């Protein structure tokens, strides 16, 4: 089992997960998986359906607590942090893009994008200005006042990317961000995510099973049956 937290690039990692174990009832989802994320890089986590990709990502992001193993954020253990601190971490340092359904249907696109700022107590005007900027970057300004139900899937995912990046996070977690999109829309979302994340120096953990999507990443982590099988640099 190779759970090498060392990075190919050599710089200090932002996040290091090692030897993670987690079962849902009797179903083991993670069996000693581990990986690290370095500042500004894009890592693709690949593997077949049910192999434990999402679970690994949730553990790294502090959404799920593994039954054993550790996740270090700049050397600080997050698996034992109280919920409030982990929430603050998610609010201020992480961003999320999921397959679908992560936008709050009651809020407009603009309000959804501004949500992380609003939750961490930024001034309203400040939040509006910054979310406008990001919506502009991701090309969803014209649907700013629409609700998630009224826009296309691609627009929704781009809005989600804008929301993930608006608070200027260190890491964005993207779990099959193109999974529900057709290939053209998917391509567009990936190109924008890649561009904007690199521009702002944000690391991206990208879960996908499509090699076309994984092609955007700097390196790949292959996971099977809850353990990391292979890590390789593609660039």
């Amino acid at each position, binding site marked *: 089992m190779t759970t090498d937290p060392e990075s190919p690039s050599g710089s200090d990692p932002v996040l290091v997960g090692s030897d993670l174990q987690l079962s*849902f*009832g009797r179903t083991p989802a993670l069996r000693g998986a581990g990986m690290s994320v370095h500042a500004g890089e894009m890592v693709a986590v690949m593997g077949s359906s049910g192999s434990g990709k999402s679970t690994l990502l*949730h553990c790294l992001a502090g*959404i*799920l607590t593994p039954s054993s193993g550790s996740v270090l954020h700049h050397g600080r253990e997050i698996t034992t942090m109280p*919920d*409030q601190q982990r*929430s*603050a*971490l*998610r*609010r*201020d340092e*992480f961003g*999320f893009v*999921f397959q679908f*359904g*992560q*936008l*709050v*249907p*009651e*809020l*407009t696109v603009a*309000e959804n994008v501004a*949500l*992380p700022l*609003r*939750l*961490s*107590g*930024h*001034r309203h005007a*400040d939040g509006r200005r910054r979310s406008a900027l990001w919506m502009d970057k991701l090309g969803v300004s014209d649907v700013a006042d629409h*609700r998630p*139900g009224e826009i296309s899937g691609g627009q929704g995912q781009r809005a989600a990317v804008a*929301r993930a990046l608006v608070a200027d996070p260190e890491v964005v977690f993207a779990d099959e961000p193109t999974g529900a999109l057709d290939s053209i829309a998917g391509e567009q979302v990936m190109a924008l995510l890649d561009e904007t994340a690199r521009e702002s120096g944000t690391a991206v953990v990208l879960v996908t099973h499509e090699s076309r999507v994984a092609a955007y990443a700097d390196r790949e982590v292959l996971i099977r049956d809850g353990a990391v099988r292979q890590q390789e640099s593609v660039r």
Partner: protein
Amino acid sequence: MTRRSSARARLGDLALGIRLAVGGDRTPWGRLLLTAVGIGLGVGVLLLAASVPTMKQARDERQNARQEIAGVLSHYPHSSRYQDSHDPSMLVTRASTEFRDQRIQGRALEPLSPDAPVPPGLQRIPGPGQMVVSPALRELLRGSGGELLKPRLPDHVVGVIDKEGLISPNELFYYTGTTNLSEGGTTVAAVYPGDSPSTNTRSLSGQMWIILSFGVTVLLVPIVVFVVSTTRMAEAARERRLAALRLVGADGKQIRRIASGEALVGAVFGVLLGWAVFLGGAQLVPHITLLEFSTFASDIRPVWEFAVLVTLGVPAAAVITAQAAMRRTIIEPLGIVRRTKPSSRGIVWRLVPMALGVVGLLLVGASSERISQLQIPFLASIVLLLIGVPLVLPWAVERVVRWSSARSVTWQLALRRLQLSSGTAARSVSAIAVVLTGVIALQTVLATSVATFQAQAHDGPTHQVATPSRHEVKVRGTLEHPGKGMAELADALEGLPSTGEVDGTAGVRFAVPEQQRGPRRSRYTGATIVDCATLLERDVVTRCSAGDVFQSPEHSRRTPSGAIRPGERLRATSTYHGSAGLEGTPGEVTTWRAPAELKPFEVSESRQYRYDMSYLLITPQAAENIPWWARNVELGLDFTASASPDAIERVRNVAAEYLEFASVRRISGYSPLPSDDAMVFRLIRYGLLLGTLVAFALIGCGLFVTAAEQIQERRRPMAVLAAVGARRRTLGWSAFLQNGVPMLVAVAVSVVVGLSLGVLVVMVTSLDNLAFDPLGLLGLVGIAAASVLVVTGLTMPALRRAMHPEGLRTE
């Protein structure tokens, strides 16, 4: 980065919650509206209930102010108490009559000095032949019946009584001016300079108090339960929404604040609507006369502490409930809080409030204090018992669901669904269960009270001289002048176009001197003045000579005074003054001395003429020194077939000419004018019915919204079921069972707890004659069943839409 202070950040979270609750076209307007309407109606009712004390106080104050001048029957002009004091400034007498089943009250005033007090609501005291009337009486006089009423109220109307002189807007009241009271009437009261007001606040009887406070509690608890359960409607959707927020980093506390903000919206809307309902209702109230009860809009002011409590308490309750709900289900960022298996519900702690309630009631019952002194523990125990019901329900629903086995797909679908969410199902019917429990208990108490009333009415001894019951109409009163005798009255009545034979006797009420019979209190007994001819003709006695007095041997057993001894001196009183003790005008003989021989006679229960139920019969020759004013005249008469319904008003007009305090009533279908107790009783009955219907309508709406939301949420599985060939009927039945099973459990629990609570209250308040109201119970159960049917019926279109294959493509 500009960050706000933490207090402002907290407000920001709250604002976000509010924003989530009113989210444009995704806003669940239906739910919000229902919540607001439900809470609004509840708050409106609470505010109205909170106005009852103020209203009662305002009415009492006006009544006392009026009493001070026009109601004092305790000050008699010739009473020895006032013999040496100043001269009275005014003389007053009461007058009242009935017109088409309404009571008209009046006062005749004779000012004796310029400083005579002007009654409240009047500019000045009406002069002789003048009359000041209440607005309602003016309308009555102007209306179609005015002609018939005019002979009794012949004076010229010179003004209208203002609000401060009236107790309620529909009151029929008048003041007339007169000059003949100083001649010495029988019932004249005097107003002396510097009289202190004799305040006389009528209070409800203990039994009424129990029923009233019980009724109010029973209707208030469901309102609270409703407020609580509306904040927990559409939980699944909210949990999903909040999970999305958790994901982007909202922590537990923030989530709770956001949820509070959401809950606050409905509550605040509701409170605003409630005030609107209340203020609107208060404006409407004067136009409504419910069972002879009406009130002025200005009297409807909530007790302000309570108004503040409701206004702030309802939103607070909503927030607290939301917080409590959050505490139980931890919203995880991934939303779906997968519970491995819903943990079994413990029954023990759920029974604690009920047990406390029972113990509380038993303690109240065991206490030697009167119930009205133990209001708080009494009502608190009832509230505990009622609150216990929604706590027990989830457990009961779960039990029933677990016991039942799924035979068909229909059952299987319903049961699985209920197994997963028995809590939600139980919650949706918890308000119904509370209403049912309370109303069933109240029905029992009401039925018992009615039975007790009736029992009391049956075994009260009749002291009063009763007229032959064969007659249609009974005329009673005191002769007004010595010159106008009973014979003249009988002739005048017979002279009316539609009357047949008139038949009458006179009765006397004697006070048996107190020094002879126990300390302080006088005892009373009745006697009938009847001539020998009548007595012989009716077989009451076999021998009779003028001047005879007969006493039944039963007298000693059947009356409070006991038998009269030969030669005993008795004081004649007027029936209408109760124990006030009228002393008559000076120089007038008020005592009657029993003769040396009291002849016996047998009272036969089977006799047709009930007047011989007086245990003392006096021939007119022996009654000569009984003053004319102490003779209560009783006449019976019949109408001819052609008599109109207003014929009785003509009889009243004639009676008013001859009698003071004339009362003319039909014997058949005789319905006494409602006493305060009877009125409150009926008000409660109707209020309860109305309240129950409103509560059911509200709860039905809640059920409907929950069911519709559930279908909406489960569109996809429904569509899948339809796709694999489930018939609409199967799904329809399953939806019906999903509503029906919890309702059935709720009804069962309510019937058991409600009947027990009713019996407990009856025991505690030591009412006799425990009785139940099976018809009322059936009615309630019927309404509950109907509400399930209606709700299921209403959700059918939504179900049909959900089953459409379109459902497969959504999401």
